């Protein structure tokens, strides 16, 4: 069984905890209890594989963001949550995604975009198109509108991000094999194997890795992005 570390990020009060608790425990929490840092476990089966999910629910309150960097480092996949009733919460995600990519130093990271509280039609200020547009700008990051209250799209969003992590890990292990072969070929018979190992990844490999990931994300979008009202 594999471990999957998923981190839930987003502005304060958008419903990160509600979505998470709904997914993990099937409970909707009505009262608001701002998070400092909560962690959850859940075992699920995806595509016939048993997965052990570790979910880190983080603080949206700006004062705790100094800890974000550590969370992002430890995470493999990310749920970026905003609330359809709060325009700023989507804006904040733009910077957050930048931060994730920067810390991971990658062009694409397993990620879903979530517009929560979609049941609050009356208070809605962001349309589905607003979310879709951001998803497109981000290179087709899968987008879900969710309601923690009615458990709409909650499981789907989590499963999506886990699938992305799975796919990426498959990619990476494939790449490692290739890399090793390539290195051995480059190093030639004279160079000691250890030296080649310690050499940092060359730019071309990094480039290759990036473009591949982009591909994965797009595929993920095609197969899984569903927007249900």
């Amino acid at each position, binding site marked *: 069984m594999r471990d999957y570390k998923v981190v839930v990020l987003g502005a304060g009060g958008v419903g990160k905890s509600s979505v998470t608790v709904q997914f993990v425990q099937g409970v909707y929490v009505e*009262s608001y*209890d701002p998070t400092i840092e909560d962690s959850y476990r859940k075992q699920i089966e995806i595509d016939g594989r048993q997965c052990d999910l570790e979910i880190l629910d983080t603080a949206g*309150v*700006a004062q705790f963001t100094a800890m974000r960097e550590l969370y992002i480092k430890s995470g493999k996949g990310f749920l970026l949550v905003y609330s359809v009733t709060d325009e700023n919460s989507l804006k904040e995600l733009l910077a957050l995604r930048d931060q994730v990519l920067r810390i991971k130093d990658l062009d694409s990271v397993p990620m879903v975009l979530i517009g929560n509280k979609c049941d609050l039609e009356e208070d809605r200020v962001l349309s589905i198109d607003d979310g879709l547009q951001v998803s497109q700008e981000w290179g087709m990051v899968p987008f879900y509108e969710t309601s923690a209250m009615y458990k709409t799209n909650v499981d789907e969003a989590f499963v999506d991000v886990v699938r992305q992590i799975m796919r990426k890990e498959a990619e990476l292990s494939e790449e490692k094999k290739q890399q090793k072969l390539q290195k051995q070929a480059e190093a030639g018979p004279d160079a000691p194997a250890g030296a080649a190992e310690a050499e940092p990844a060359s730019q071309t490999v990094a480039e290759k890795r990036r473009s591949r990931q982009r591909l994965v994300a797009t595929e993920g979008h095609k197969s899984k992005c569903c927007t249900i009202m």
Partner: protein
Amino acid sequence: MAAEQDVEVEDELARAQKRLRDLKSRISAQSKKNFVLERDVRYLDSRIALLIQNRMAADEQREVAQTLEGEVDPNKAGGVLLDERKMPIYANLFFLLQGEPRHIASLCRMVSLSEIDTLLQTVMFTLYGNQYESREEHLLLTMFQSVLSAQFEMTTEFGSLLRANTPVSRMMTTYTRRGPGQTYLKNVMADKINSLIEHKELNLEINPLKVYEQMLQQIQDDQGSLPEGLPKSVPPETAAANPDVQAIIAPRLTMLMDIANSVLTTIIQHLEMVPYGIRWICKQIRSLTRRKYPDVTDLAVCSLIGGFFFLRFINPAIVTPQAYMLVEGVPAKHPRRTLTLIAKMLQNLANKPTYSKEAYMMSLNPFVDMNKVRINQFLNDLCEVGDFYDTLELDQYMALSKKDLSINITLNELFNTHSLLMQHMHVLSPNDKHHLHVLLDELGSAPPQVPRNQNRAIDLPLYSRWETPIQDITTALMSENNVTQNDILYMETKAIFVHIIRSIPQLAEKRPINLPLIAERAATAKDSILVRKGIKVKEMLRELEELGVIDQKDDFRIMREEVIAELLHLGNLKEKVVEESASLESVYKTICDHNAYLRSQLEQYKAYLQNVRMNSGKDSSSSGVGVVSVGGKERKLAKSTSQGPYRFTHSQFEKEGIIVESNVPENRQVEPARDFASVLIILRISVIDVKTSTSRSRHQYLEHSSLRFCLKVVKSLFWRWISRSTTCWSG
């Protein structure tokens, strides 16, 4: 007005007061510098990765280079000339903005979140930058109040009040970090936190799953293999039911509750040290809530106050004490977890959630149950502070008599504020007769932002063409016809006696004091100023007696008593001034240390960039990194500074606290980092999002006590203005 003349008197009190004033202005100035530096560091932190990968546009590269360059270049600073004809208009504009906080309050609600930080910098550190001046503090709080009440108006659900990241919450953060926080957190919380993080190996994890995993790891390390019947991954319930896990957790729970209890006790015991402004904001939250939701329970109100006090002020400092300069360096893993758990317990206590999202937190419920009553009492006590409207009115009035009202503002702050005002003029001041509108019309469109190294600070004297400055407070009081000639004479006489006694303290050693004798001794002293005062006060005493205000028969009892009372007050004042100076000295030192730390961070960025460029230069020219120029021109690395060249290793970074946790395999950590992209993954430039610093507390009222004497007079004046009553003031 006894203390108004402190400048002339050369006694210990006067000297202590002067030291205090100097200290305060140094803290104000220094904390602004830190705020700006912190923004620079954060900016670089967010940009450096892009820069190194050469993914940045040319003009942004320049901006980064300029940020690294740091200081304003005084030679270039003259480059941008202000239109001198506009200066008086700016002076008037900022007088208006400072004195009428509602304009800024509306602006704060309209600007975008990306604009708010710059605006808040100008507001908190420039417009109201004298953090120890009660008038500016009170105007700032007034602005707060209006933003707060607007937020209450807008919020539909009670549950989301004051919670999302809105301009108000940014404001509250910036305010708590302005320095009231600084002193408070440093004085009240630092020792507790430091004693906790000393125990690097103390593991207080109580999440059964984590404890179970750690236990397995331990067994594996000890025995090399896992025994039968202990699967690697188990559901939380199984982990929680494991007797060994329970045995590990039980004493940890007790310990955590003990620690949390002592933290709470410390906080409660130091209620009086909570800065006035923070308490006043708590009070506003309470009264706004009660007004908008008349049926609200006391519990719900407390959870809102706690949401501000604990969530935004106390807990962030507990969770990331390094960001608040409470500790040096980032705490180790175990203490960090302990601190997080303590913060979570306090949060649970303040908010009392009905549902425990993480099941294991329920085992800490005894802490909540034990302290429920205590915390509610504390949160209510927090709100028990006076208002400042009456003193503010006085301050405002006094401000008009000041000729030296000015702010120190940078060109970019000036232009940025101007530009924001223009953008929102139609809402702020739709009527073209309004003063704000008139001024903005005269100013026209805002000049563009100037380059960093030309962004000099100027002293902008504030004045208003619509208000006549008051030349002399005495005449002003008189002209209102509310204070009689007698009253003025009485006050002046008293003030002179106090002055004389402060100059020759022996005069008051014998009690009861003899006023005519004191006057005589002054009149025959060596000091010519004292002589003049002595002669004058003798005459005044006689005049007052003629007027029947005082009576020689009882040795001028009223006057005697008041002079003694004033002296007593001044005596206490001195102790307090000295005490406060001592506490502020330590704040100032902290701020300076932090400043040095921030500068060293900037240096590290510089060095790091140079390192990058040097290595990339060796590699090949194609990587593009070497293109980065610092200071606008290509610098030759060899002779650039005495500090280069740099080679960083993982362990160096770790020692410097730059790397906190990394995924770099052990065997590679000794390698000098050559691959910059991979360094960036592991590089964690200690993020400081400390916004500001400085301190304020009850003492601001002490300063005020210098004006106590005429406060009585002026207060009644204002009442009269308000009620338009015609009754006469009577001492």
